[in-house]
């Protein structure tokens, strides 16, 4: 058993594991979908076994507290990163001003098989937002207003944006460059109940030149095309603030041969009913991130590096830095 452990603890195996990890990292560049996660998991598993064996059998590691902390920290990081992948959730969210968050709004959801976060307990309502732009449309600070219900019945207003995510139930909501306008429409069918909703136009100002979308009323095959003509005050030459309150829009509605321009509050009659453009609002795109291990990863990695630092400090302070001890200096393993 000891011989097997010593063989598994070999430094040459460590080097092999590192080379394989390097290959895995090269293959993982850019997170290509066709590359299996095993290109990283396999060398990490090999290194973890090698490291665990070394911690048990190698007195150079297990009798030096700093080095031991570093190597245990490395093992802990591999373990935590693995747990993180199994329990994570990554998603995107588009939410309009005045809209309450609901898990059904999440898009492009990627989650680990053990993900069990309390997403249904996340509650907030999106407010308005502003984005500062420097000349030449260079994006500055984002301020997104979010309202969170409190246990005492009050509502807490929070300003989030950029590197200040909204953190609820360990889910982290980050504002993104993806945000834009949404005409709020009411569809009054020829027979039936009126329904209201929003049509999210493409991200603004990234797709300033193509603010269009389309919608098919329920129970019909009518394809209604929308084109939003915006006046936001956008300028390339000067600084500018994207703010829904300072923006106006005219909605061009096209259905078949019929084309009509609507201002907020106006409506038009279409083959299967009437369409009213109630008002113009905005939507904000968030990146949603959940990984319960990130704080632990931070503490374990920092503890590991401080262990390494302590080991080196002790080692380096024992001898003069530029001693000329030729007998020992170039021996294997001497530093």
């Amino acid at each position, binding site marked *: 058993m000891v011989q097997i452990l010593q063989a598994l603890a070999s*430094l*040459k195996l*460590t*080097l092999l594991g*590192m*080379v394989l*990890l*390097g290959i895995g*990292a*090269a293959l*993982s*560049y*850019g*997170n290509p979908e066709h590359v299996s996660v095993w290109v990283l998991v396999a060398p990490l598993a090999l290194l973890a076994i090698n490291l665990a064996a070394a911690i048990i059998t190698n007195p150079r590691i297990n009798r030096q507290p700093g080095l031991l902390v570093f190597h245990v920290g490395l093992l802990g990081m591999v373990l935590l990163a693995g747990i993180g992948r199994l329990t994570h959730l*990554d998603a995107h969210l588009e939410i309009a001003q005045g809209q309450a968050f609901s898990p059904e709004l999440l898009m492009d959801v990627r989650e680990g098989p053990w993900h069990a976060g309390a997403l249904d307990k996340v509650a907030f309502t999106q407010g308005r937002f502003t984005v*500062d732009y*420097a000349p*030449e449309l*260079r*994006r*500055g*600070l*984002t301020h997104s207003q979010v309202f969170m219900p409190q246990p005492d019945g009050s509502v807490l207003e929070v300003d989030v*944006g*950029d*590197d*200040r*995510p909204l953190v609820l139930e360990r889910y*982290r909501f*980050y504002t*993104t*460059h993806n945000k834009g306008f949404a005409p709020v429409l009411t569809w009054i069918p020829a027979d039936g109940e009126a329904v209201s909703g929003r049509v999210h136009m493409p991200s603004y100002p990234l797709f300033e030149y193509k603010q269009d979308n389309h919608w098919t009323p329920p129970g019909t095959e009518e394809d209604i095309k929308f084109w939003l003509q915006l006046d936001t005050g956008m300028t390339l030459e000067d600084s500018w603030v994207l703010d829904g309150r300072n923006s106006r829009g005219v909605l061009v509605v096209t259905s078949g041969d019929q084309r009509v321009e609507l201002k907020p509050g106006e409506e038009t009659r279409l083959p299967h009913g009437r369409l009213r453009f109630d008002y113009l609002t905005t939507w904000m795109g968030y*990146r949603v*991130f959940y990984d319960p291990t*990130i704080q632990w*990863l*931070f503490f374990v*990695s*920092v503890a*590991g*590096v401080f262990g*390494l*630092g302590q080991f*080196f400090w002790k*080692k*380096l302070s024992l001898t003069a*830095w*530029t*001693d*000329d*001890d*030729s007998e020992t*200096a*170039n*021996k*294997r*393993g*001497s*530093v």
Partner: protein
Amino acid sequence: MNIVAEQPWLWAGLLAYLVATLVAMWGLSPRLAGSESVQSRRHERVVLGAIALGVLLLTIAIAVRWVRIGHGPWLNLFELLMSQLWSLGLIYALLYWRLPGLRPSAAIVMLVMWILGSWVLLLEPADSHFPATYYNFWKWFHVGLGKIFLALMLAGVGLGGVMILRRTERGRQWFRAMPTDAAIDKLAWRLMMLALVFDSLMLITGAVWAQDAWGRYWAWDALETSAFFTWLLLAVGLHVRLSFKVPPWLSGVIIISIFALAFVTYFGTPYISPSAHKGMV
């Protein structure tokens, strides 16, 4: 060509580095081995003084630019090179002062610094836009730790270069005043150990910044992949040294290879890929 306010200070700083480079090289000359100046190591004080003066002048250059454009040297290549010339000079000056054994290798180190020095002279000092994600305070730790890492690597490159050049008769003449190859090798790897600590801390703080700024701590983008390779190669280098008897010249090759990868990570990768550090989307 428009000359902006920080450029004269930058040029003056580079001139001071040039003096340090020339004096360091002059001190290696076998013909001057018997001269009183070299024997008493007075020229080393001139080298140290010139580097310190260069750092001071570059500090002024950075401060002038900071005031002019409203933010620090974080973004474009001109700013990164200027900032690295400053931090590499500062940290190397401290090492040069505290570790007399590595002083003759300054001739190599300063020549490497001139890759940055001549590069920055070719660039337009264009103003940069400060992205929202750069307000995060973890950036300070990430950048600061990265600067210490690169400076330790640079000092290691000087020693690695000495071990390689000493394979020739001329190299042995030039670096006659340095300790044995074995002692240099030991010192070089001690610097590499410290570099590993600071590289690790740089990656950790960078991951925290990335989590805050871009909503993920690691995504295998070009910069992260390249930085990981650098860390891994450094770890491989240390383990190779633990596993095999590595001759000094090969130690030098390994150290210079790690530095080359770090150099590409710092000055190449962020500008050939739209990775997170650009942060301007």
